[in-house]
């Protein structure tokens, strides 16, 4: 029963700026910067490789600016990689070399994303039902009644009163907006879900509810999830494996309990020891 990865990344690199031959070799934790000394470009992600398995929750942790959001944006095709490859479901084809249309198809049928900032994930003036329907239309749905039923079902699942289906997210609290984003991300039954700092900026009690919701959804829907957070508590609660990022590189990766109890890299030791 050895399972194959649902997603595999190889050497993913994102450079903001013109770039030059020494960008990658002059940045990273060894140089304590992600800015190339020659050309000034930002190496937001450098040579990142990993595998994501079915039904697993992979954490990405690291300080502000370490490249976590950039990495999930590359994986979700929101941003174009400078180098590297992504393989889906053990296919030998690098999906990054597919046409934008084909990438969108993969994204609309297989992936869901919850952005750090709900303004990226939601259209604030469109009703919450409309937000979900937009995504369903992209995934090929056409029947309006069916879309409305699906939207109500998802809102119920994410504990938003269905009565609010015709209200725009602009009227909602931060925690509610995140839950509408989660509904939207789940609408097309994705097999891979990206969560970028879903609980940042929420009250502790609201955080707890959102985290409980994510745990329940993950175990019922058997999703593969990538959770980005700078909060080790969130990482401990949700994930089984973790990658630690600094200056655009993965400095350490392993089982989450091992990363937290027996961190190997200097930076991870610092991160764990400075936990509140």
């Amino acid at each position: 029963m050895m399972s194959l990865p649902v997603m595999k990344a190889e050497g993913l690199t994102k450079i903001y700026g013109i770039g030059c031959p020494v960008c990658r070799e002059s940045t990273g934790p060894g140089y304590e910067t992600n800015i190339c000394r020659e050309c000034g470009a930002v190496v937001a992600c450098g040579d990142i490789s990993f595998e994501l398995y079915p039904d697993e929750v992979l954490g990405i942790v690291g300080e502000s600016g370490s490249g976590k959001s950039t990495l999930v944006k590359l994986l979700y095709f929101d941003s174009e990689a400078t180098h590297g490859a992504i393989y889906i479901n053990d296919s030998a084809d690098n999906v990054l070399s597919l046409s934008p249309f084909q990438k969108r198809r993969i994204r609309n049928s297989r992936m869901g994303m919850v952005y750090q900032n709900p303004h990226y994930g939601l259209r604030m003036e469109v009703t919450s039902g409309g937000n979900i329907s937009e995504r369903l239309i992209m995934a090929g749905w056409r029947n309006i009644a069916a879309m409305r039923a699906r939207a109500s079902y998802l809102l119920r699942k994410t504990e938003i009163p269905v009565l609010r289906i015709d209200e725009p997210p602009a009227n909602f609290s931060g925690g509610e907006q995140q839950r509408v984003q989660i509904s939207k991300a789940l609408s097309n039954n994705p097999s891979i879900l990206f969560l970028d700092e879903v609980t940042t900026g929420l009250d502790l009690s609201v955080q707890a509810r959102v985290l409980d919701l994510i745990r329940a959804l993950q175990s019922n829907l058997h999703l593969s999830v990538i959770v980005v957070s700078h909060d080790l508590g969130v990482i401990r609660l949700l994930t089984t494996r973790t990658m630690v990022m600094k200056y655009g590189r993965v400095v350490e990766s392993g089982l989450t309990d091992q990363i937290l109890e027996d961190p190997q890299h200097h930076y991870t030791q610092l991160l764990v020891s400075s936990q509140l």
Partner: protein
Amino acid sequence: MLRVENLSKTFNIHILDNKVINAFCDVSFHLKRGEFLGLSGPSGSGKSTILKCIYRAYLSSGGNIWFDSAEYGKLNIATAPNHAILNIRRREVGYVSQFLKVIPRVPAIDIVAEPLVTKSRLSLDKARTRAGELLERLDIPPYLFDAYPCSFSGGEQQRVNIARAVIWTPRLLLLDEPTASLDKDSIAVVTDLLKELKYEGTTMIGIFHDRIIIDSVTDKKYEMNQGVTVHAAQ
């Protein structure tokens, strides 16, 4: 079932000027299916660290941990890929320590039932019934079943912890002082539960302070810095 070969563990604490702590070195022992090894030795001699290396909560620094996995065959836990470790944790290897580490806001009965649902694929109803029976055997009053264990006493938490560990009959079970704050009666129940597991074929390694448990369930002893002694099984 398990062969530990020349295992060693050092901690390099970079944030304390690269301080090096040698937790233990050159530990070797092996266990057949259904055998129970007791680990003993003074405080700080590395007993907990060995169990954590076998569970891979710690990375070993040297040596091998050969485990006969149902899924993978012979697997070196010291070097196996993370996803293989996660799979054997999910289906074959259990770990229980002195402290209950649980997911917040989950009632006691579900904490205990959960391994039966996720690992043994039982229905939630059946799993809850079995969990309730086990908690009752461990003398947890039924009105606590639906409460959150973070509000339980230390001893009650430990009993929930043990129930969760023994309910699914893992192939290998690692026990780090799970009975430290239990009274005589509870210890007697735990002893019976461990004997039942052993009878069903679970291989175990345990650290216990209580002589009664050690004498009545373990087959062998590994004394830190002195090695293995075998004593007759009871």
